[in-house]
């Protein structure tokens, strides 16, 4: 019986100690950057908590409005200030504001300390009054002002860069198009340096010299030999007289050139060479060695003779 009484008393004492412990919960006073603000002003509201190193803290999210009339602008942010032995000082701040004047009581907040999953302690941040005042209006000197327009901020370099880049790009594209059109009109390469073409007689003479160097007829390639010579002469006539010879037959070329008063012994020789060439190309004609040897000199003589005529014409006109 005695033992029973002793146990009951011990249990009651322990309960009493725990109740006392609970009621002895640590209470911190909350901080304000200002405790009186004008309507619309923002104020930091929070507290500084000393937290053991092995503990994590938990705070309930603030309601918005915090209390009727006080709006939450920014939730709590936590900032570790310094470490002392095994404790940290943690600064926690929320930003609030109010758009109505008056006195508001911001409620107390509870911070829970957890060690792992276990709740080991709680800290209470006490509630506090926030005074919100209006802007005083001097009714004696009261004056109406118009609504101010939006501010025109100065344009920054960063804002200008994309537009300047686009402008430069458009200018470059326009220049390339202009250049391409001009080069095309002048029959020059699209890009790069302008191609300086040789005069027609130089091109023709150079080409005839190359044909001579290939020794085509000596290697039984008479057809290629005459084709290349006549093609060179056709190209020369094309450039020199402006007649499209590649789409014309020999007879048509001869007729057209005679209509342009091309004559002389060189021209007669060339006509003969053209005839031999047609026979070789289309009739499997085997030209004699003499005919083959004469073909290039005849072509060269014609080019030189017509070039000299051109110079004389230019001198007469000039």
């Amino acid at each position: 019986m005695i033992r029973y009484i002793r146990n009951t008393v011990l249990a009651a004492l322990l309960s009493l100690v725990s109740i006392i412990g609970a009621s002895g919960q640590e209470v911190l006073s909350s901080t304000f950057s200002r405790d009186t603000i004008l309507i619309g002003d923002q104020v930091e509201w929070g507290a500084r908590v000393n937290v053991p190193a092995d503990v994590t803290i938990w705070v309930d999210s603030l309601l918005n409005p915090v209390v009727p009339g006080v709006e939450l602008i920014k939730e709590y942010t936590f900032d570790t200030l310094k470490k002392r032995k095994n404790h940290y000082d943690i600064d926690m701040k929320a930003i609030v504001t109010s758009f109505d004047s008056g006195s508001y009581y911001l409620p107390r907040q509870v911070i829970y300390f957890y060690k792992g999953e276990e709740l080991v302690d709680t800290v209470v941040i006490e509630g506090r009054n926030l005074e919100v005042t209006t802007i005083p209006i001097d009714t004696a000197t009261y004056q109406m002002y118009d609504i101010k327009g939006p501010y025109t901020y100065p344009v920054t370099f960063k804002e200008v860069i994309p537009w300047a880049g686009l402008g430069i790009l458009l200018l470059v594209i326009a220049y390339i198009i202009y250049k391409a059109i001009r080069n095309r009109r002048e029959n020059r390469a699209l890009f790069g340096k302008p191609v300086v073409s040789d005069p027609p007689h130089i091109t023709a003479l150079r080409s005839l010299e190359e044909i001579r160097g290939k020794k085509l007829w000596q290697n039984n390639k008479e057809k290629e030999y005459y084709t290349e010579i006549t093609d060179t002469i056709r190209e020369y006539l094309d450039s020199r007289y402006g007649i499209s010879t590649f789409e014309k037959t020999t007879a048509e070329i001869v007729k057209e050139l005679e209509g342009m008063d091309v004559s002389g012994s060189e021209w007669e020789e060339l006509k003969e060479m053209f005839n031999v060439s047609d026979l070789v190309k289309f009739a499997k004609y085997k030209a004699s060695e003499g005919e083959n040897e004469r073909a290039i000199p005849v072509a060269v003589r014609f080019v030189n003779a017509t070039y000299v005529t051109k110079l004389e014409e230019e001198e007469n006109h000039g």
Partner: protein
Amino acid sequence: MDTVNIKELNERIQLESSFVDLLTMEMNKVIVGQKHLVENLLIGLLANGHILLEGMPGLAKTLAINTLASCVNAKFNRIQFTPDLLPADVLGTMIYSQKTEQFQIKKGPIFANFILADEINRSPAKVQSALLEAMQERQVTIGDETFKLPEPFLVLATQNPIEQEGTYPLPEAQVDRFMLKVVVTYPKKEEEKLIIRMNNGGGYQKPQPILKPEDIARAREVVKEVYMDEKIERYIVDIVYATRTPEEYGLGKLKDLIAYGGSPRASISLAMAAKAYAFIKRRGYVIPEDVRAVCYEVLRHRIGLTYEAEAENITTENIISEIINAVDVP
């Protein structure tokens, strides 16, 4: 082809083609002017191709072929195509003989060396088909029997470019069977004066037969031997290809004007006609001029024009000229 002896061939052609001048001379006794028509009749005759003639009435189309038939000493028949003509009227039919109590074959007017199918577009398609089939096959079947048509066999069909009401235009597939389409134009003033004089002076001279059908057959064999270089073949192919894909030859502007271009038959005809032309010019080889000389006649009926071309009054001749002036000559 490489083994051809051109010198020998040239000499042979000089010899074989000697009749051309005689024939032309004989025809010119009767036909005043129309050199182009006479030349193309010879090309058709030598290249074994039929000819479609287009021209106004009274331009000596019938007279020309009649004269040619007289010169060759060959049989000539004229068939006037009318809307009520039947295939049997052209090809022939089987007639029941009460005397022999048997069916007898009655050959139609197509059994002749030279046929003038006058105003071919006045008959319905079935008659046109019968004629064109005979032209192609060179044989006719009547009842159970098949008869070869005589050689040489040359059909000249005429079309009148005016009075298109009540006509049956030849379908493109059938027009393609004519090797040449020759447009006959009016004679020159001087020529027409001569025509009046000849008519008023008691008629034309009678042409003398200077050739036998066998001579024509032999000449045709020689024409086939006329040498055509690979460059010329390529030139022909380029021209025909340019009618199909003009944009590949720098003629993009023709693309929307051509509905369809020449068929491979056009290439064959162009080559054969060029050979015949070279033969007439007494040459044993073909040069680009020969191809160009026959180009219009071979291609003008083988190029289809779009509505856009017709609306702009562009003719196939315009198209051919553009092509000839754009394709490189070898």
